[in-house]
């Protein structure tokens, strides 16, 4: 009976969600008449006053940078919480609950690939304001490099304190740039550096600085998550 009611409720909800979204449509002009959407202003300001080639980056880091600071904090809290909950159950460094038998091909191949992966990740977040990608994506790429090393080598260790220091310094950079903007620009996270010319590496004011900090932070945090979970006692 209970299951039947649940299924009925879900069906009703699903029906209404689907007709609403089918009705709104995807890609068509779905806005109410007479409304000027903020997206037009975003596109305009990105090219004309920020000189950033990637609009997604300018929205994520500048227009809605406060949200990004919040999301970075969410990740930080999730990692902190994971470390707190698995605290008592952790193995010593070098011991693991899960071991993978890696063949010669994997061990030698991963050693070769690891620097390339880290380089790609760094490229993605340093060029976040010029090409697709950015801090979050670059950070994840770097973390996959560490995951590969942890899978290939049983005794590969990452210093817990090192990760914590990188994480903290990157977070302080982000929040610090924001407060610096408050002091010298007038509002939190405001751009206080010259914007440069479009498509240059050094352009976009504080946007590359923030994205590089985000890249380091995400890389350190996700590596920390993988490391913590691998060393969890069953």
């Amino acid at each position, binding site marked *: 009976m209970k299951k039947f009611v649940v299924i009925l409720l879900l069906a009703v909800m699903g029906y209404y969600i689907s007709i609403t979204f089918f009705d709104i449509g995807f890609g068509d002009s779905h806005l109410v008449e007479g409304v000027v959407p903020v997206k037009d202003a975003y596109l305009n300001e990105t090219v004309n006053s920020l000189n950033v080639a990637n609009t997604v980056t300018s929205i994520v880091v500048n227009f809605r940078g406060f949200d990004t600071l919040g999301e970075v904090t969410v990740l930080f809290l999730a990692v902190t919480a994971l470390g707190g909950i698995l605290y008592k159950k952790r193995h010593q460094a070098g011991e693991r609950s899960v071991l993978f038998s890696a063949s010669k091909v994997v061990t030698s191949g991963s050693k070769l690939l690891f620097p390339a992966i880290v380089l790609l990740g760094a490229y993605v977040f340093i060029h976040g304001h010029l090409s697709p990608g950015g801090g979050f994506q670059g950070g994840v790429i770097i973390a996959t490099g560490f995951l590969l090393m942890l899978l290939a080598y049983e005794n590969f260790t990452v210093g817990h*304190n090192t990760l914590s220091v990188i994480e903290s310094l990157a977070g302080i950079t982000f929040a610090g740039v924001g407060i610096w*903007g408050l002091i010298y620009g007038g509002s939190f*996270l405001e751009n206080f550096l010259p914007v440069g010319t479009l498509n240059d590496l050094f352009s976009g004011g504080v946007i590359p600085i923030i994205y590089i900090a985000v890249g380091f932070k995400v890389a350190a945090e996700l590596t920390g998550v993988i490391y913590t979970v691998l060393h969890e006692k069953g």
Partner: protein
Amino acid sequence: MVGTPVLFVAIPLLAAFLIPLFGMIWKESVRVIPGIVLAYLLVLAINLMNYVMVNGPIVEVIAGWAPPLGINLVFSAFSGFLVTLMVFLGLIVWMYSYRFKRNVDFEPAKKYFLLLMMLITGSVGMVLTGDIFNLFVFIEITSISAYALTAFYTGRDSAEASFKYLMLGSLASAFLLIAIMIIYSQLGTLNMADIGSKMHLMKPAYKIMAIIFLFTALGIEAEIFPLNGWAPDAYAEAPGPVGAAFAGIVVKAAIYASIRIIYTLFDLSGAYDLLIVIGMITLIVAETAAIRQEKLKRMLAYSSIGQMGLVMVAFGMGTEEGVFAALFLMFNHAIIKSLLFLSGSYLVYNSKDKLIKEVNGIGKFLPITSFLFVLGSFAIVGLPPFAGFWSKLSVLTAAADSNMLLIIALVLIVSIIEVVYYMRVVNRIYFFKKDESVSTQRPTLNALIAMITLGAIVLIVGFYPDAVTGFLHRASADLMDKAGYINDVLTLN
């Protein structure tokens, strides 16, 4: 002006990233820094509140983009009042938990205080923000800290409670995103004031879909029946001070967000009736469930849910008196329920099951803590001359002014139920014989100071309610003034 509202978010975030670094140098700093930050924020809140009472609301833009392009924060009489209350309670909870459990290792202590500070920051951000997606981000910050704090004791039961909370919380996040998507697809903006000014253009069908999803999502956080399945478990399994923080801070922020959405964003008149109906159901179900509880903290949790139902009913009246009564209830509930959670945790400190019958005769062994618990019980059921009396009275007069006789009857009946289950505990504390096997734990000095401060506020507001009613009248006028809010935000450049 001595600071700006954004510091309420920026300073704790900066401190949160600094704590791991300082913790490597001086271990005690992980406990001390959150306290310093919260004390600074309290001073800032009081200063800004003084400024706002004279000069009107402060609207602050982020990254130099005027609304609706950028994100903005609004510190008005309404939001400022709640922020001051939350930061004050946060400081009290911090002081109380400074040495709550002795011999806690360095790592868990570091995480506990960091998460507690972020819990408060997230709630304050929810109240301050003027952007609906930013609201989502702050809800995420608050809930992730809340899941972690619920599971802090790493036992089987607390893991279960945390998991339940996690599942419902994720559902809330998904629903919130669906609602934001519907609104953005129609109006092309995320700013609350901008949405409020354009809402009449939206198709009614979409409007109803959006409000249902928003209200369901926020109802999960605000413990509205039937979405509150997580609450009793989370309150019972989380450490005592965290229960106080949930009841006093997190739930208040969620209530604020749902009220802001119904009063400012949407123009559906039926939403007020929805508030009354849902509030009444929540009130009846939670209070009758509270009678049957055998664990002290679960009883307090159900009582907390019931009070939130009453707050919803008062907001649903839609009049300025109703809003005033609701705000007065929120203020009193935040202070009194925190006092009950804080003193109650010491009454059942060493017990494993935290049963009500284990407080038998404890009044002789813990005189001050028991006295404070009893003071809180008297205040929350609304006995004169304590603080709770005035808020219940204002609900009754507001209901009488709007000719809602059923609400008056309901509030009076529910008060009797409350008397029954709170007096049962009071009776056990003073008039039963103590069980030999129960060992008591004396509160630490800082916990005692925290509890006595709250007790003093209960008495001061009880004898002299004018101490807060001035602020509350300003705050309720501020919430009712929708055109003023929209004008303040959108005329900024």
